[in-house]
């Protein structure tokens, strides 16, 4: 079935057995992001030490795509330098905005390339991006608490450049 491109086995595995889940101490910043149209929510903590993402922990509620994405994202960025992790975020965002035209570089994005199929479903792109946006926001706050207060996320916590699909 066509949906298999979205519901890759690797995504369903992360959904059933999420990695790094649960809120942990210590942390430098905590954020709460929601997707108001479908009720997905994530509370996410970041610990940064010497320019490296030391830990990402989270509690989240949502669909299989958003849950799996949080698992894949945290596994991918933990242990990376902040700059490298931010580069991954940009790469993942580009993949999600490709509307099914990009495959993603598996050497860089690893398990996250499994979400390439999700980009064909505009309504679901926000699900895949929720935890990434939360991580980016939390990391900005962790790295520079003063600067981050002036750059709060959108009220909805959703990226502005993703099309609004579902009318409340």
């Amino acid at each position, binding site marked *: 079935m066509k949906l298999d491109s979205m519901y890759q086995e690797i995504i369903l595995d992360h959904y059933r057995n999420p990695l790094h889940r649960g809120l942990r101490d210590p942390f430098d910043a905590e954020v709460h992001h929601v997707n108001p149209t*479908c*009720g997905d*929510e994530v509370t996410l903590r970041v610990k940064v030490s010497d320019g490296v993402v030391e830990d990402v922990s989270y509690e989240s509620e949502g669909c299989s795509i958003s849950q799996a994405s949080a698992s894949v994202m945290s596994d991918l960025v933990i242990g990376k330098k902040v700059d490298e992790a931010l580069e991954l975020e940009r790469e993942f965002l580009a993949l999600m905005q490709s509307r099914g035209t990009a495959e993603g570089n598996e050497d860089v994005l690893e398990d996250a390339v499994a979400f390439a199929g999700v980009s064909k479903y505009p309504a679901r792109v926000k699900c895949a991006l929720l935890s990434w946006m939360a991580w980016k926001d939390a990391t900005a706050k962790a790295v520079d608490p003063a600067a981050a207060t002036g750059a709060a996320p959108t009220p909805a916590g959703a990226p502005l450049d993703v099309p609004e699909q579902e009318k409340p």
Partner: protein
Amino acid sequence: MTLTESLVAGGTPGAAGFDVEQVRKDFPILARTVHDDLPLVYLDSAATSQKPLAVLDAERAYYELHNANVHRGIHVLAEEATGLYEATRDKVAAFIGATDRREVVFTKNSTEALNLVAYAMSNAETTGAEAQRFRIGPGDEIVITEMEHHSNLVPWQMLARRTGATLRWIGLTDDGRLNLDNLDAVITDRAKVVSMVHQSNILGTVNPVARIVARAREVGALTVLDGSQSVPHMPIDVAALGVDFLAFTGHKMCAPTGVGVLWGRHELLEVMPPFLGGGEMIEIVTMEGSTYAAPPHRFEAGTPMISQVVGLGAAVDYLTALGMPAIAEHEHAITGYALDALATVPATRIIGPPTDIDRGGAISFVLHDDAGRAIHPHDVGQLLDERGIAVRVGHHCARPVCLRFGVPATTRASFHLYTTTGEVDALVEGLHGVRRFFSR
């Protein structure tokens, strides 16, 4: 215009003669396919209804033959356009049992109708003594229910914030009904306005309006009813309901988007301050100040949504010809059938009344996999869409209800006059498929 000709030729309206297959022929979109060649199973009418040909024809005819601005100009087109616009006011009044056409105010939708009342109340502070009834301030209370759509919740939160009044609400029972045990304690003589939903968009519950209105009257509070999900589905008589205001929207009752209605008792509208200022709502304007037109025009500032109002008139004609009692009977039967059918899907939790008593055709539920783990509605909706089945997933603009029942979201199937038992069967088969997929 002979808007109902095709309808009358196409079937015999009336409870006994209600023929859903015949009705479906009036809705071109129901014949389309999705995902290449799957028939469309549209179970999202609580979000918006589909439109019959008669409504589409009326809007097109308006633009092809009569388009002009209303209530101004003395040429032929202006008079025709005004005639069509005002004819809908008569039709809507008759449709809801209002005896006075001046009680029907056209708005953009239910949301705007409800905001109109809320803003009129805060504007009353700076209006003359005649608006006393609408004044609200610190110490006063606004009462709503826990099952309100955000459109009948947020405007009252905003009014409370603007005026210093307190917002209170009637809670829910576990089976999705209003908990009236402490009604007298929630609605006290401090209540200035009681606003509630007639039929819940998420739970399907039809509320006991009479009981709440009786209590509101005892304490002298204004009463507002959100009829967004009731007016399209059942016969409505504002006199029998006994409320002061009724808000509803066209697009859920086979009319175009962009038009809604606020009905209000004339003696109240007469002293109610305006919400939006502008052209058409005035009497005399000077640079120093203005006086306002009588209702309904006081509340219809600016060029209105003329073609949509004409479409609403055609929708009212269409529904009236079929007969609202027959439509209600059909939907009641479908709702009962669907509740029975959903009971055959293992571990499915209905969020809302489990029976078809005092309940409309919007059924929310949470599906679980074989391991008993909830399958998120977003995933359910996606897999159903793959089969051509359109349902709504999310919190349905009633997030407090989801919080009350401890779920992040629900899947909702909702019905209308054109829904068939075959479509319910397709839904149930689809849900079995979703369970299989996530139980792998």
